[in-house]
């Protein structure tokens, strides 16, 4: 054999070897099939896909340029799960033969009557009658409906015009595909393709975990345009993870600049270290004073961190999140929450107004309004003016959230406004919120203001605010001890 192959160039061996080679290739690829008519190569699915992902069909491996499949823009990688045959009805002969072909195998077809929605006709047993007869040429009408048949139970009247019969056939294997297409040789066919949502969700999740800047465009595209909610949810949570990773850039740059995977823990910013540890990127050993990037992900990510940081800070994501925190844009609350979280991390000043709008929106879920307040608190000082305006609102929830956010941000302006409000209100619910917010700021003027309140309510035993103030002072003195 070896000798023969070395003499490959000689024509008498060539004639022998080529068919042999073709045979070997043929045997090796029995899970593939080239459709001569449509000019495309198809591949059988792994048989367990049916059980694991309830997916069946055949996959398009390649289409021959300018062949029928290519011209119809069927693409490489598409999963054909149904073959649909359409039979136009122009005579009683058309009707009877379409009925026969359509019911073959699956006892199931779709009847299109003029001015009526498509009717699915299913027989219980093979050989059962549909119960219809027709008449006419060119225009075919229902002539008779037999009682006690599927047709009698459907919305069909004598005189209805039959337009076409459609037969959808689910494909389970390459052999089935060949068989069905063989029967439809002189027929126009439609393929129904399925999207492999499971694979896409896994890919989207993996892209979030990998922390690679190149993923952002695709994730945004899926998030904006895909109709599958589960996939959109996976996309936004991957984007959230990428944002979380990107804010650790400063930390990862220190490793990257030193070109090491271990650094003294006390040389790094504590809060970033903690976040990175929570995300599983590194481990911190305080007794040894080391921060060690975890292999393989942490050690690989340091090379990608800067590109991710730059891409995230182009502003596209902040814009996206601002748009999708609105209930009128995004009906899914999990997605709105993810967008609020993204804004809380990115802290764009441009998000202040949209966030205040969410906070003030009475139709929004209370938890989400509160989360908008948290995002504003994370933005900090630039949000103070807008929060003070929101605090003027009549709505107690808005007042409550705004006051609590102002307390979280602190600063002279926020503090003075809160103190003033406390001194001018006698509404118990608002008083409590304000006391809590002012206590959070906790500087000398704040404490003096709270002390004044305590004295004012000193003799009022039943007052909620007095009890609450006592609690506040008690916990503060405990802290200072």
């Amino acid at each position, binding site marked *: 054999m070896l000798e023969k192959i070395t003499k490959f160039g000689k024509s008498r061996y060539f004639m022998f070897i080529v068919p042999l080679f073709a045979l070997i290739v043929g045997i090796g690829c*029995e*899970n593939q099939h080239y459709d001569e008519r*449509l000019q495309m190569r198809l*591949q*059988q*699915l*792994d*048989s*367990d*896909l049916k*059980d*694991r*992902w309830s997916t069946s069909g*055949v*996959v398009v491996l390649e289409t021959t340029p300018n062949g*029928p*499949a290519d011209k*119809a*823009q*069927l*693409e490489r*990688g*598409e*999963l054909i799960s149904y073959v*649909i045959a359409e039979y136009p009805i122009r005579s009683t002969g058309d009707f009877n033969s379409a009925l026969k072909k359509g019911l073959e195998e699956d006892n199931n077809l779709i009847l299109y009557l003029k001015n009526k929605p498509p009717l699915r006709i299913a027989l219980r047993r093979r050989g059962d009658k549909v119960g219809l007869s027709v008449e006419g040429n060119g225009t075919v009408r229902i002539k008779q409906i037999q009682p006690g048949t599927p047709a009698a139970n459907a919305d069909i009247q004598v005189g209805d015009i039959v337009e076409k019969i459609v037969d959808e056939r689910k494909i389970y294997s390459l052999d089935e595909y060949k068989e069905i297409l063989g029967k439809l040789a*002189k*027929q*126009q*066919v*439609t*393929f*129904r*393709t*399925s*999207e*492999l949502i*499971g*694979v*896409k969700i*896994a*890919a*989207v*999740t*993996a*892209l979030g*975990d*990998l922390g*690679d800047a*190149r*993923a952002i465009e*695709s994730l945004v595209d*899926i998030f904006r345009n*895909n*109709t*599958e909610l589960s996939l959109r949810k996976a996309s936004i949570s991957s984007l959230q993870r990428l944002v979380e990773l990107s804010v650790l850039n400063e930390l990862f740059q220190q490793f990257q600049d030193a070109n090491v995977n271990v650094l003294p823990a006390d040389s790094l910013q504590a809060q970033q270290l903690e976040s990175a540890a929570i995300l599983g990127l590194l481990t911190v050993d305080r007794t040894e004073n080391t921060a060690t990037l975890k292999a*393989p*992900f942490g050690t*690989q*990510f340091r090379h*990608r961190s800067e590109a991710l940081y730059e891409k995230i800070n182009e502003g596209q994501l902040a814009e996206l999140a601002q748009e999708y925190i609105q209930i009128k844009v995004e009906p899914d609350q999990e997605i709105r929450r993810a967008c609020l979280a993204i804004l809380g991390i990115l802290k764009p000043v441009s998000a202040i107004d949209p966030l205040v709008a969410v906070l003030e929106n009475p139709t929004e879920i209370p938890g989400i309004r509160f989360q908008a307040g948290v995002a504003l608190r994370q933005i900090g000082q630039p949000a103070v003016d807008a929060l003070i305006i929101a605090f003027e609102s009549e709505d107690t929830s808005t007042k409550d959230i705004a006051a609590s956010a102002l307390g979280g941000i602190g600063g002279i302006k926020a503090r003075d406004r809160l103190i003033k409000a406390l001194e001018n209100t006698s509404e118990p619910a608002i008083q409590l919120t304000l006391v809590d917010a002012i206590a959070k700021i906790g500087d000398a003027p704040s404490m003096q203001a709270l002390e004044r309140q305590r004295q004012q309510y000193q003799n009022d035993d039943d007052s909620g605010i007095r009890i609450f103030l006592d609690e506040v002072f008690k916990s503060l003195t405990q802290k200072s001890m």
Partner: protein
Amino acid sequence: MKKIGLVFLLVLFSVGCGTQNENLAKGKELIKSDKRRKEERAVREFKLALQQPMDNAEAHYLLGFYNSQEFYEPNTPDWESASIAERGKQMFLAYQEEKGKYLERLVFETLRDDDLDIQNAALDALKRVYKQADRKRLLSQLQKAIKSSDNRDRHNAHWVLGHLGKDDPNTIVPILVKLLEHGRTETRLNAVKALGEVGSEDAIPALAVIIESGSAKWERDREEPEVRQLAVEALGKIGGAAVPELVKIVENKGSSLRVDAIRALAVLGDEKVVEPLLDALKEQSSRDVTIPLN
């Protein structure tokens, strides 16, 4: 009643004076009893038994089995001598005195114990057998175990083979690869797992064959889904050189293991996978495509 007890003691005594190692017998008796701290006391007896010239194999074995660092103050010589490695060594000494008996006992009995320390000591002993003694016989026992009808044996054998393979992949990987053809699904399953634990690149082609068999025309040529899934996991554990093979799975639109491959790749964090993942996202959504007759 008392009399019977007395007679029993006398018999024990005479046996002890005869061929039996007295301390060994005492230790074994303690283990069977429900006395307080019986194991700690038995270990003391086994140590004494070893100072006598007879029945050393069993004393070594039982010392390795029952000794524990919990009995001693940390960092004392006794504590050191109760480490997993020292216990493994005692088990190995037992093996050296009675090879056939203790090899079988280690593989089919000791490894089955619930105590993780005992399992690890047995593993240590078997590693010593592999390095210093009858490697061939050990491997044949382990192959017998991985082909066993008892799941515990199969699991234990895969665990030991995985560990041995880390030190000597050149010998172990071909053995495991050959087991991939075994008739019992669970045996193949454990062989695949062991190949993952060995983590040798040499296993990649054999794992690839299993993975690709999913679309074979005949059912008999298709490997079971759970074995194929584990083969993908094994590729993930091998990492590095297995990345292209995992990428190939992601790119095979007909594969049932794409999700598994994607997950394995995400754990590896290799950036070579970003492009194939982005490609997967570009795949068309569900739609109807009509191909006109001409």
